[in-house]
């Protein structure tokens, strides 16, 4: 279908473009940005007046709980949530039930997502069979099935020999290994170690849980030359370690979640289970360092760390509540809010959810790498059209995600998020269209 997105402000972090222009789309690709040929016959027009036309968002960490909760229609609802949040590509970790350690599972997941045609789905394969940390998976086969990297999700490998072998094997093929740096033993608590956890009587996870794992991983990167993506940093010391590793020239990238970027342990309040998150919320000083790291490029991407949590899994004492929160529909708003508040600006705020994540994915994206996360004539038409001035209060029950739990609920935060998505296009198809009025604001 030929679509014309009219009258919007085109903002593309990769090219630095920021200008008012029409965008013409045909056969799933952008055919022109500005200077639309007079004979372009639009079958569909999207009025983007007052809106920003940006590349579709790329989220490097979203759990869809499938395989596992197919019977609850999780994939349908969560991909609809992604589209409503302007997310056109997402990476899902392998800690599903069963884990993504077999090509057949990956193919089935990709097939089911493609049928829904809401959002591109890029699974990470399990680094070891069953995430057990003992036997390598068939990484080449899994890559052929569609995996874009390999991960242990939350199951840290404490056997350093095994970790080194896994990195060596992955780097044989040039695959990226995605690791969340957390020591298995020190990481067993439910809140960040510190005065808040001590006062509330919650078991703590010290910063050393992150830095010890980081130093181990970085040392093995030096030894093996493997390319590693460090997932969801949580501490100032972690940011400093990544900054030093990058300065040294190690092939590492890193991300931070919307939760760690905006919140800190004080937000736990009176044991609010919506603040039960992994990694745990740390001090305000850590949060500030994460914000600075995202601004200066030490951290490459901002991720939603989306996990739809059912009410019965959250309505429990803090330590027993399932850690996690819905985030796909909040990623854009929280990126923009950070851009405004930190002074990083609109281009950087969009870069960390578009171009940045695409660079992390690198060649694993194949032909998409050239144009995903960017607005390029001739490139794929993955777009997010949003009203930057519309502010909306987060009402958990109104989320499209089946998970109605978020630490950013208006009733708790009292602040509204900027940026209301008006339309999301995936491969030139309208995957989401929001209300044209600003009723939500």
């Amino acid at each position, binding site marked *: 279908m030929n679509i014309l997105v009219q009258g919007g402000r085109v903002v593309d972090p990769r090219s630095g473009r920021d200008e008012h222009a029409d965008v013409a789309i045909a056969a799933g690709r952008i055919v022109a940005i500005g200077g639309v040929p007079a004979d372009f016959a639009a079958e569909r027009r999207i009025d983007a007046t007052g809106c920003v036309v940006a590349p579709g968002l790329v989220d490097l960490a979203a759990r869809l709980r499938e395989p596992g909760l197919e019977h609850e229609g999780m994939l349908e609802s969560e991909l609809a949530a992604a589209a409503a949040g302007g997310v056109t590509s997402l990476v899902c970790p392998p800690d599903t039930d069963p884990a993504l350690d077999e090509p057949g599972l990956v193919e089935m997941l990709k097939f089911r997502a493609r049928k829904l045609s809401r959002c591109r789905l890029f699974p990470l394969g399990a680094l070891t069979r069953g995430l057990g940390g003992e036997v390598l998976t068939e990484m080449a086969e899994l890559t052929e099935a569609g995996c874009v990297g390999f991960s242990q999700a939350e199951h840290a490998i404490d056997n350093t020999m095994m970790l080194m072998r896994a990195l060596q094997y992955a780097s044989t093929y040039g695959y990226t290994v995605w690791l969340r740096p957390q020591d298995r033993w020190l990481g067993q608590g439910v809140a960040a*170690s*510190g*005065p808040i*956890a*001590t*006062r*509330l*009587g*919650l078991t703590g996870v010290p910063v050393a849980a992150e830095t010890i794992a980081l130093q181990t991983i970085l040392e093995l990167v030096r030894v093996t030359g493997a390319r590693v993506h460090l997932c969801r940093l949580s501490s100032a010391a972690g940011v400093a370690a990544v900054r030093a590793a990058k300065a040294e020239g190690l092939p590492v990238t890193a991300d931070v979640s919307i939760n760690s970027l905006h919140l800190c342990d004080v937000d736990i*309040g*009176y*044991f*609010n*289970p919506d603040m039960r998150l992994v990694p745990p919320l740390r001090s305000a000083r850590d949060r500030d360092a994460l914000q600075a790291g995202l601004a200066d490029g030490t951290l490459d991407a901002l991720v939603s760390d989306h996990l739809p949590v059912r009410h*019965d899994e959250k*309505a*429990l*004492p*803090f*330590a*027993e509540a399932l850690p996690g929160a819905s985030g796909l529909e909040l990623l854009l708003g929280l990126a923009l809010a950070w851009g405004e508040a930190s002074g990083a600006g609109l281009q950087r705020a969009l870069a960390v959810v578009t171009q940045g994540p695409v660079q992390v994915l690198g060649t694993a994206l194949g032909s998409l790498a050239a144009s995903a996360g960017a607005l390029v004539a001739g490139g794929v038409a993955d777009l997010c059209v949003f009203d930057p001035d519309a502010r909306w209060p987060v009402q958990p029950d109104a989320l499209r995600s089946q998970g109605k739990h978020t630490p950013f609920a208006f*009733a*708790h*935060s*009292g602040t509204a998020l900027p940026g209301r998505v008006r339309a999301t296009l995936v491969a030139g198809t309208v995957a989401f269209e929001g209300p044209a009025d600003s009723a939500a604001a």
Partner: protein
Amino acid sequence: MLSRRNPQLNTHGELIHLLSIEGLPKAVVTQILDTAGTFLSVNDRDVKKVPLLRGKSVFNLFFENSTRTRTTFEIAAKRLSADVINLDIARSSTAKGESLLDTIANLSAMQADMFVVRHSESGAPYLIAQHCAPHVHVVNAGDGRHAHPTQGLLDMYTIRHFKQDFSGLVVAVVGDIVHSRVARSDIHALSILGAAEIRAVGPKTLVPGDLREMGVRVCHDMGEGIRDADVIIMLRLQNERMSGAMLPSAGEFFKSFGLTAEKLALARPDAIVMHPGPINRGVEIASEVADGRASVILPQVTFGIAVRMAVMSIIAGNEA
């Protein structure tokens, strides 16, 4: 924000639940202690009953086993003329897979007026208070490592009884602080009542430095910890922690941090020694001290009933 309001106070600042001592206005703490004083005389009468909770149903919900605390709550409720229902949940519904909130919903449907809750997880009573019917009051009888507010209040009652005024007092809390809900409640209560100095005493594995942010002087040496103290609160060392990653042995702990007559001599001559019970003789406290002149361990138990009566009668009189 609404959810950040102290959930145990109503909009008039009156106590509707007792979840933690933290954040209580000094006037509320003093009101509880004063009320407890009036109930002490009830306990000495032949007919040990007052009709304040007549017709009310108090459910003792013990998700974690406890005989002592449950018994004192039961006695307190009965002396207030309430109907008391004891539920040993550790062995019933949750064992069948029922969730905490489903249990609470079912019991609320039985027209409960008050839940006395003990749970192994920090914060569980907050969850219950948030989800039970508005007319139901919740008393925290100990949650994880977080709080044991009635123990904290009875400790304050005991201190006030023997020392009258808090303003000049040096209070040492000794032993396994990191796992102790009693220690946390005592520390909050002592801060609210204006104790001059609160010390947390023990090895680094059991006394985290973060406690300083609660206004506590952290001491890793017993001599420094109890020197010139007016009040020494010894904590129980749980059996499972006596040897392992926290401590090598009960014997070594006793040698360094156990309270002996010799160490007690470092405190002020009129110092009192307290313990929430049950005591481990020869582990945290020597028998000669536990049974000695300075010990007020048994008066603590007596005061505990009056304090629990005070708490239950006050919250039952306030509306959400």
